């Protein structure tokens, strides 16, 4: 399984903070995103915004990062701390 987390606006707009999906062979961030966007129009729209950030296992990463079982993937908007 892969654990997926959403934060801030992304979470509010999806109405979900966490979900689990079965891991798939040769899956990367981009294919995971496509799976999530296929859920409905709202998911497609929220996850298509240009400034979505992604972290895998709590480190920022790019869309072609490969995923494996047990990974924690997080999607969130640009950060605004400090």
């Amino acid at each position, binding site marked *: 399984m892969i654990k997926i*987390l959403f*934060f*801030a*606006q992304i979470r509010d707009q999806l109405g979900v903070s966490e979900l689990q999906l079965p891991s798939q062979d040769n899956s990367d961030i981009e294919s995971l995103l496509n799976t999530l966007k296929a859920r409905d129009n709202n998911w497609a729209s929220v996850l298509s915004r240009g400034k979505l950030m992604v972290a895998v296992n709590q480190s920022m990463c790019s869309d072609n990062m490969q995923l494996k079982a047990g990974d924690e993937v997080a999607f969130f*908007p640009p*950060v*605004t*701390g*400090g």
Partner: protein
Amino acid sequence: MIRVQTEDFSLQKEYDRLRQLSSVGAVVTFTGLVRDINQGEQVSSLTLEHYPGMTEKALSEIVSQARQRWDIQQCTLIHRVGELKLSDQIVFVGIACMHRQEAFAACEFIMDYLKTQAPFWKKESNSQGESYWVDARESDTTALDKWSGK
């Protein structure tokens, strides 16, 4: 030392710790506060959300990059989360070095990276009681350019 906490912090207490070593000639501190007007809105309060686990990891990474670039004697980084009011303290970065140039540079470097790399999100409430997520500032991204040369 890195801390992510809901409680407030004491500048004096942090400063006293930073200046202990007799090799310290310069202490630079940065404190970020909840400002009354942000992005054109009158702010009355603020909620800071973060990504527990990743936050600490991201902050440690930023501090260790600063330590690789400059000769830092002591470094403290505190970021608050949760509910904050107008003028409350949000973030503290304190750097103790032998010389001032290093202390200034390391302190500003840590703030610049924290602003763009550490998973915190601000939700503000205005005087009409409306809540909204704060937008990331383009100027925070361009602020990183000054560190890519060295």
